[in-house]
């Protein structure tokens, strides 16, 4: 086993990896940008190496700096987390060339799945079902309009080199194509440096179902059930569950087989996720994420294992346990992403300093977060602040437990997605399991809810009244203190240990 590993990431996922590594007796090395020098992942690691810079490009995306940090700190392996360099085949290669172990899939497997077009070609060869669409990307709106006549509306436009919901637009009619192509292509160009778009049929009432897979270096592969991630907006997930109400044990077994087949076809190793679109009993391959997913904890809760531990052990050469493939789901887990965004204002990003913080607790509640009082939420990094996860014996109990946990949670200083998640969880249709990937977009968040309006009005009045009174009292105080301080500093010297003291 490794003695020391470096985590090439920040935020909650860096902390997530550090937590497991500490439990395994492995020394952890954090890296950090100038902006993150006080971050929790830095404080919780055994060692920390500064990368300098503030933007991702100057820090967490700088391969030279990250590899140099691993060498100088005596690390034996690098865990990339998710995002940043996690799905970068060049980085994985360079890590290996530097004599370090890469806690992730082989570079060739990353490449095979990194490009949506290449991955679809591989999957067609491996007899994995894919969504009707174009094999080649288009690079202008005119070509897109022509291709659309063949595929049929509605059509999804996706960045050829995309991910994370960036550069994705749905087009319902030909007249929308021009504008949608312009914004999607612009986003793709600024995010990935490639403005080409991939086109495919947009499926009716689809559910986003994904299968967790694990492969070791010795040719063994297992699937670990599904995750339902249909509560999403602009392809950014908000609520995830394991298992899914839509999936029967038979379908689960079938999807698991196909996911393992997909991984095997590209020589996959380590943890990965095969995403499917599920529509009316059919399912189609969407893409494979060649890394640990954000929502991996729901699988951990229901299958009773630690996926980060499995990742580290696989990278160290361990064989998968023979019993791993026979694991059965137990109970129900739900995850809610707490993002810094304002759900009542079109989910626009929200920035600020976290001051007011109240964390939930109690039975079956897990909070994966790198939040702390005084944390600044800026625009340089992903808006996800925390993941709240609950486990219970069944789905209704898990929903009630999540509602309870969200009622306990307060993250102040920024607006968060938490109130929107609560509205979804309280919705009868969600509770009955009747939803698809359009559910969140279709939810009317503008309607005021019946609630404690009078109490809130009274409390708001008191808040302003007391704040005004405090200001009136303290400003008086400060003015007086400033006068006396100034007078004192003129007449008194305060020698510091290094100085000789005395007035000059």
């Amino acid at each position, binding site marked *: 086993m490794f003695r020391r590993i470096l985590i090439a990431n920040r935020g909650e996922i860096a902390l997530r990896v550090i937590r497991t590594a500490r439990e395994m007796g492995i020394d952890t090395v954090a890296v950090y940008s100038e902006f993150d020098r006080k971050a929790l992942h830095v404080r919780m690691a055994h060692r920390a190496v500064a990368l300098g810079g503030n933007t991702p490009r100057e820090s967490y995306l700088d391969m030279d700096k990250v590899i140099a940090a691993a060498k100088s700190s005596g690390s034996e392996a690098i865990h990339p987390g998710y995002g940043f360099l996690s799905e970068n085949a060049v980085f994985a290669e360079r890590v290996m060339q530097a004599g370090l172990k890469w806690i992730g899939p082989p570079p060739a497997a990353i490449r095979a799945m990194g490009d949506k077009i290449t991955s679809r070609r591989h999957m067609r060869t491996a007899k994995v079902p894919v969504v009707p669409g174009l094999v080649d990307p288009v690079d202008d709106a005119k070509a897109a309009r022509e291709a659309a006549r063949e595929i049929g509306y509605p059509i999804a436009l996706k960045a050829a080199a995309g991910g994370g*919901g*960036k550069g994705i637009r749905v087009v319902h009619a030909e007249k929308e194509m021009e*504008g949608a192509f312009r*914004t999607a292509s*612009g*986003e793709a160009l*600024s*995010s990935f440096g490639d403005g080409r778009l991939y086109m495919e049929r947009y499926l009716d009432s689809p559910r986003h179902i994904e299968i967790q897979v694990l492969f070791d270096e010795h040719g063994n592969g297992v699937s670990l059930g599904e995750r339902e991630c249909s509560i999403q907006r*602009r392809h950014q997930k908000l609520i995830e569950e394991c298992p899914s109400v839509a999936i029967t044990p038979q379908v689960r077994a079938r999807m698991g087989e196909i996911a393992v087949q997909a991984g095997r076809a590209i020589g996959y190793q380590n943890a990965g996720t095969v995403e499917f679109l599920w529509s009316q009993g059919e399912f189609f391959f969407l893409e494979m994420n060649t890394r640990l997913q954000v929502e991996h904890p729901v699988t951990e809760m229901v299958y009773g294992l630690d996926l980060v531990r499995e990742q580290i052990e696989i990278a160290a050469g361990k064989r998968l346990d023979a019993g791993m493939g026979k694991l059965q789901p137990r109970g129900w887990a739900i995850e809610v992403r707490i993002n810094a965004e304002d759900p*009542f*204002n*079109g989910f*626009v*990003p*929200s*920035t600020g300093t976290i*001051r*007011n*913080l*109240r964390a939930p607790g109690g039975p079956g509640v897990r909070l994966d977060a790198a939040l702390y*009082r005084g944390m600044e939420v800026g*625009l340089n990094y*992903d*808006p996800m602040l925390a993941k709240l996860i609950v486990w219970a014996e069944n789905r209704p109990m898990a929903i009630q437990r999540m*509602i309870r946990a*969200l*009622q*306990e*949670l*307060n993250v*102040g*200083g920024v*607006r968060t997605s*938490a*109130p929107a998640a*609560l509205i979804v969880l309280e919705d009868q249709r969600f509770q009955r399991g009747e939803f698809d990937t359009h559910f969140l977009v279709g939810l009317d968040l503008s309607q*005021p*809810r019946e*609630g*404690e*309006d*009078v*109490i*809130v*009005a*009274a*409390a*708001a*009045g*008191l*808040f*302003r*009244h*007391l*704040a*005004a009174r405090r200001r009136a009292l303290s400003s008086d105080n400060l003015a007086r203190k400033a006068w006396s301080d100034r007078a004192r500093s003129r007449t008194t010297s305060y020698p510091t240990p290094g100085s000789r003291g005395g007035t000059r």
Partner: protein
Amino acid sequence: MKYFVTVNGRTHEVQVRERLGELTVEVNGKPLDIAYEEVDNLGQVAVRCEGKSFGLSIEGDDHRLGAVIAGHLYAVEIEDERERAAHAAERTASKGGGMIKSIMPGVVVKLLAQVGQAVEKGQPLLILEAMKMQNEIVAPSDGTVQAIHVKERDAVGSGAKLLTLKGN
């Protein structure tokens, strides 16, 4: 002191009186038995009111704030009598046009309108990029673009002035 507090679109009159250090509260003319204690000066408040207890979170400034009770967010606007009169006068003057401000920090990617151009409600005026997402900022009403306060590639903060629209 009398405040006009708008919660979820409904305005309540909140009268706060202070006598010998004791605060009494009336909402819409009815006295309310409420105990309000700030826990940590960071936003946590203990509220007890007519037998019920609440772990409130409240933050914002004198005019706009967010209150959270049991996970649900209430968007609140507060005016005192003087501010209420001033705002009413302002609203009648601008006729639905006025200043369009950025609701988020970001970068102006593209301007889609020019000064003097007539625009329809819902027409895109500019594209703002924030957290790598491009968002179209649209005209809130029919009108004419009177002034543009930003250039392409400008970084703007939340609340920054983008355009001035003159209502028809």
